């Protein structure tokens, strides 16, 4: 009943472990799959290793957290060792980042055989120089990167977009035109900041960090709704989802499935099973046969 299919990937349920939440090792990805996730996305990795920012890299705020981990990763060579050990009967999606179309294309080719799809992280609000949101805020750059990756691999290419732009629809259209097979909306919001009132120190070492958690759900939902009206490719909704009602909202707004991240902080990996159980009950009560029936329903209202 909960099965969905996105870019020809069959998922047993519509809940996906979001990029950057655990996911830096095969161990944690396999654990998420065992815990009930319908698919898993790795933490973003690049050609070279990166230690990320000094701590503090995460601090709580009202309704969520802000983080500036800074895309730490051991580099593609080491990460391939992780990808080789992926288990579980779920689609595995590799999140990759870089600063040029060539970076992205090279990464994509190197891991194509080890995963079921790619998610291009062109939208990290706390990436270091030349990576991250700077790309996803520019339709041309986005388009070039998507085009380069599409040329170099056959597996589905999903593009994760930042909400921190004047018009997300413009970027979504650019990604679609360049051949993206699906979109993930949204990466973390803001960025935001927290200052310690005792000392006047910005808490994060990077000062600014991307917001995630329930507080960003309304914005994520609007981005999904707006984008659904303007593109044809499927959307993975992400942003503040913590319970099955949230999933229902995202499906109604036009997401074909959802990603879950910060909820793991509040509820642990059990959150996947809890959401799926709740969603199944809801669908029975409402006489839905498939998740797909619910997708985009808010647009008929």
């Amino acid at each position, binding site marked *: 009943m909960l099965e969905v299919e996105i870019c020809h990937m069959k998922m047993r349920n519509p809940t996906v472990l979001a990029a950057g939440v655990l996911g830096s090792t095969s*161990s*944690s990805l396999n654990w998420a799959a065992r815990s009930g996730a319908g698919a898993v996305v790795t933490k973003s990795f690049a050609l070279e290793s*990166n230690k990320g920012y*000094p*701590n503090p*890299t995460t*601090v709580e705020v009202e*309704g969520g957290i802000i983080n500036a981990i800074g895309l730490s990763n051991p*580099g593609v060579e080491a990460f391939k060792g992780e990808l080789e050990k992926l288990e579980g009967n779920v689609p595995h999606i590799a999140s990759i980042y870089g600063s040029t179309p060539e970076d992205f294309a090279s990464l994509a080719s190197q891991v194509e055989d080890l995963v079921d799809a790619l998610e291009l992280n062109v939208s990290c609000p706390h990436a270091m120089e030349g990576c991250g949101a700077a790309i996803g805020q520019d339709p041309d750059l986005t388009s070039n990167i998507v085009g380069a990756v599409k040329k170099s691999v056959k597996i589905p290419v999903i593009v994760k977009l930042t909400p921190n732009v004047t018009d997300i629809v413009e970027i979504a259209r650019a990604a679609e035109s360049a051949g993206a097979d699906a979109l993930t909306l949204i990466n973390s919001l803001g960025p935001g900041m927290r200052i*310690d009132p005792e000392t006047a120190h910005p808490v994060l070492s990077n000062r600014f960090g991307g917001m995630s958690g329930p507080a960003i759900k309304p914005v994520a939902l609007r981005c999904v709704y707006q984008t659904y009206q303007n593109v044809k490719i499927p959307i993975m909704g992400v942003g503040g989802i913590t319970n099955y009602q949230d999933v229902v909202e995202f499906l109604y707004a036009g997401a074909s499935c959802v990603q879950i991240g910060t909820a793991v902080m509040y509820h642990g990996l059990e959150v996947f099973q809890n959401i799926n159980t709740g969603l199944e009950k809801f669908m029975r009560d409402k006489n839905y046969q498939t998740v797909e029936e619910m997708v985009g329903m808010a647009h008929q209202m």
Partner: protein
Amino acid sequence: MVKDKIMHVPQVLKIKRVVEETPTVKTFYFPWEVKDEDNNQFPTPGQFFMVWNFSDEKPMSISRIDPVKGEIGISVKMVGPFTQSLHKLHENDQLGLRGPYGGGFEIAGSRILAVGGGIGMAPVAAFTEAASSRGVKVDTITAATTQSEILFAERLEKAGASVFPTTDDGSHGFCGFATELAEKLLNEGNYDMVVACGPEIMMQKLFLITEKFQIPAQFSLERYMKCAVGICGQCCVDDVGWRICVEGPVFWGDQLRMISEFGKYRRDASGIKNKF
């Protein structure tokens, strides 16, 4: 809306006093009160804080927990730039504490062997005091390279524990590794449980010893940490995936069997594996 309880924010506190424990270890005491209106919890032995010195933030074990005095102590061994900067601090200087995080040691059984190696004595000391105060008989091995580095011996004697110092160079107490002394004590005594914290190589040997004696044991592990709230994945251990900051840092021996990287390697800030 009822106001959120926001817990994962550093609380900037003034250092109440600094105790020089050894030439390389200082304990920093902080006031810690638990009021209904705030979100503090009193930590339990084995839990840790993320300690923020306004330029970096690292996990540090709690070495002393005193709800009566309303204070906690964090013992810091000088090993690098971060801990060097901490060692320069004095009474009334400020540090940020975020936590307490992780699960602590469980107190069970009526006679316990506690083993602390080096700065691993920090949580073992807190545990020894907590267990002793509950009437449990605790024998505590405090292991160091040399006599001047022996930690907390007097304090733990006062708490009612039997303290067994051991030094690598034989300058004080038993001469040899903590694991050798532990094996000797386990052979002689009738213990219900072992708890341990120290270098992972030491704990790995101790783990094998406790397996041999078929005695339940808890071990406190350490990994590089970033978020400490269970989402960044930095401290996940192979192959089971558990997070040191949430499922750990203390594990039972049978849990350790599922942590294949235990005693073998750990990941650095970028996620690259470094062998022990």
